[in-house]
């Protein structure tokens, strides 16, 4: 049974390991995955702890459904206090690691302390060892994984690793598994590096009993049909996620030249069909693959087609790399995107943060705030492909003044660069915005402003808001499982109803992150994909646990509130530009200049934005300052946190 998967507390300083079961009442409150991780983080960290110090707990998990008969339960979640933001650190990745960890007996790891020398953790069928990583330290993310397999003489071992960027404490270093499965954003790879922890390797052959196996398989057929029949997933299975960037660029929703434009014109070379042609030319017609138990197959495979790295195998690129190394830096050339994608994967560095910071530095260079003297002669102008790729390497290895500053993250770098550099930095809570531009989409602007881990699209984005769905369809989606009698608007340039949509999506995404399911299998990019009404069935057949949709909604709210409590404890205040739910002034002051007719000339209306935040807080049960009301905590059963149940 997946419910008998355990939690292990590993102290790298002392070498002590303690294993505990996860009580059912804890499961009923937090399910597993990201939600339970948030509970563990709040309970196992002290206020103000150093993100790169030994007391910052690194928490690794699978969801409650991981490795069961349910579809696409591949997701691994990692959480700690973030070295990038000083607030919640959280990342989520696909691949095959979390299922292997579940087969090895564990759903959650809480890792504290710091190893005396480079080490890795090996988990095999309930046993945990801390091993010497001297032969692995310094290796790229894939070389490290293959070296661990060779050392353990087992090619089925799945590892989660940090790359050179994590070892060098780059504040936005990733954890990685496989070729391109990236636990990006918020620098969890740097937390690994700070603990001298190169990798966590798992190998498991322990059965996971299914509560109602026949029904679970039968229902999964229905679930899979729902997933694979969606138009968005059919497109993703053909073109991969580049179709997202392509569509967004088409109407003018992407950042270009940092934040000066909202469309990358003449980007034909990096359009999804162009990337797909390269994948087909270099890997053949069957170049799409997928994560554990997933039928969408959105992962492309390619070889770099030209240049010094010609022939190198890689996976992706995701839409994020198109945005990071094509659009933002105004270098819409396939080779730059494909090589940039390869480098950040190998170094274990967040593509979105890297591309954003390079494009920010390019704007500072353009405005004379940094000069070629600061860049050691590198011509850091927009459109310079070589400069983009050079900067990726410099940041990873902290070479030179500018790159070393950028490696610490945008806000610390702005203090190094001085002048008005901070005002050009497109970030929320210290994390750079992804490659999108939300000036024409108030709902999406609210999403990035209030997201728990900083400016981010994967925590509360109402992406289906862009589809102009009829209001009755919106009511059907957003009016369940909790009735909503407010107005909703089909117009994504409107402000009406968006706070509820963002609140609903925040809960929906927390739900899938607790289950361990990919977001492409819920109401993220497709309006017809499973959510609260569907999940009780999957949960019941696989685990035997009964929940109503309303109960799952409450669990999601509870877990989101735990994240909020952590952020408040670490200094979140509503209007703080560095640690608050606030957008850069450019959203309010500088109109969009490109895109579709009704996208051009848009800014976010600040008064309406403030009203949206008020309304969003009201839905969450927060007061006007963003703090939880006493009755909200009581209703969610959080009035005694931290409660140290685990």
């Amino acid at each position: 049974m997946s419910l008998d998967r355990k939690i292990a507390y590993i102290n790298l300083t002392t070498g002590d390991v303690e294993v505990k079961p996860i009580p059912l009442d804890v499961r009923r409150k937090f399910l597993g995955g990201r939600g339970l991780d948030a509970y563990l983080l709040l309970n196992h960290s002290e206020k103000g702890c150093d993100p790169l110090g030994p007391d910052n707990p690194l928490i690794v998990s699978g969801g409650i459904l991981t490795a069961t008969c349910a579809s696409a339960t591949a997701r691994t979640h990692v959480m700690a206090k973030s070295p990038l933001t000083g607030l919640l650190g959280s990342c989520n990745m696909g691949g095959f690691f979390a299922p292997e960890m579940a087969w090895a007996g564990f759903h959650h790891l809480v890792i504290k302390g710091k190893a005396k020398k480079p080490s890795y953790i090996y988990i095999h069928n309930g046993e945990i060892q801390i091993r010497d990583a001297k032969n692995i330290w310094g290796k790229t993310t894939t070389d490290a994984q293959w070296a661990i397999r060779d050392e353990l003489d087992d090619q089925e071992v799945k590892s989660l690793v940090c790359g050179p960027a994590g070892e060098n404490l780059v504040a936005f270093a990733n954890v990685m598994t496989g070729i391109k499965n990236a636990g990006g954003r918020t620098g969890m790879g740097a937390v690994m590096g700070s603990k001298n922890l190169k990798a966590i390797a798992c190998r498991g052959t322990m059965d996971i009993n299914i509560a109602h196996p026949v029904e679970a398989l039968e229902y999964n057929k229905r679930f899979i049909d729902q997933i694979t029949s969606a138009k968005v997933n059919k497109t993703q299975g053909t073109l991969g996620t580049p179709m997202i960037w392509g569509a967004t660029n088409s109407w003018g929703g992407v950042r270009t030249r940092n934040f000066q434009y909202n469309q990358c014109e003449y980007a034909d070379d990096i359009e999804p069909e162009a990337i797909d042609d390269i994948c087909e030319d270099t890997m053949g017609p069957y170049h799409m693959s997928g994560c554990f138990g997933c039928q969408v197959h959105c992962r492309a495979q390619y070889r770099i087609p030209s240049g010094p790295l010609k022939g190198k195998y890689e996976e992706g690129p995701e839409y994020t790399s198109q945005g990071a190394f094509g659009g933002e830096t105004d270098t819409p050339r396939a080779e730059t995107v494909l090589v940039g994608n390869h480098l950040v994967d190998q170094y274990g560095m967040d593509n979105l943060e890297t591309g954003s910071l390079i494009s920010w530095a390019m704007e500072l260079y353009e405005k004379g705030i940094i000069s070629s003297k600061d860049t050691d002669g590198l011509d850091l102008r927009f459109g310079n492909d070589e400069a983009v790729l050079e900067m990726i390497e410099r940041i990873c290895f902290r070479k030179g003044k500018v790159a070393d500053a950028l490696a610490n993250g945008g806000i610390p770098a702005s203090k190094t660069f001085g002048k008005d550099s901070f005002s050009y930095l497109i970030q929320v809570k210290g994390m750079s915005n992804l490659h999108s531009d939300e000036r024409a989409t108030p709902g999406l602007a609210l999403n990035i402003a209030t997201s728990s881990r900083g400016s981010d699209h994967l925590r509360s984005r109402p992406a289906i808001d862009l589809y102009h769905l009829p209001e009755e369809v919106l009511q059907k989606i957003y009016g369940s499982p909790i009735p909503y009698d407010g107005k909703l608007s089909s117009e994504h340039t409107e402000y009406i109803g968006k706070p509820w949509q963002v609140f609903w999506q925040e809960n929906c995404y927390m739900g899938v992150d607790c289950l361990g399911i990919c977001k492409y299998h819920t109401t993220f990019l497709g309006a017809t994909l499973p959510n609260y009404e569907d999940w009780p069935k999957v949960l019941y057949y696989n685990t035997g646990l009964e929940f109503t949709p309303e109960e799952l909604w409450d669990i999601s709210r509870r877990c989101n509130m735990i994240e909020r409590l952590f952020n408040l404890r670490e200094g979140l205040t509503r209007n703080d530009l560095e640690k608050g739910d606030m957008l850069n002034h450019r959203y309010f002051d500088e109109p969009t200049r490109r895109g579709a007719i009704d996208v051009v000339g848009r800014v976010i209306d600040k008064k309406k934005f403030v009203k949206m935040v008020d309304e969003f807080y009201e839905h969450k049960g927060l007061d006007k300052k963003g703090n939880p009301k006493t009755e909200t905590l009581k209703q969610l059963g959080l009035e005694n946190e931290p409660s140290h149940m685990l």
Partner: protein
Amino acid sequence: MAVDTNKESGAESLRKTRTYGKFRCHNPTCMGRLEPKPGDDHVKCPVCTSEFRVAWIKEGFPRIRGPVWEVNKKLAEEAFKKRWGDK
């Protein structure tokens, strides 16, 4: 029991609203449904005059590959000037 095995969920019931062979104009307040003919590689929105290049995922499944840059850029520049003057 919390699980009603036969009931169709809201998300499942929305499947019948899917449209095939069409896509929406990318101009937000237009969003008219456009239906390119099989094999077409361009489409012009009859309502807002935006123009798009068309790609085909497979037969009967078109998608917008991107704008016709020159046309939509001109439309955008005119729209910007109307809203913001020469700023």
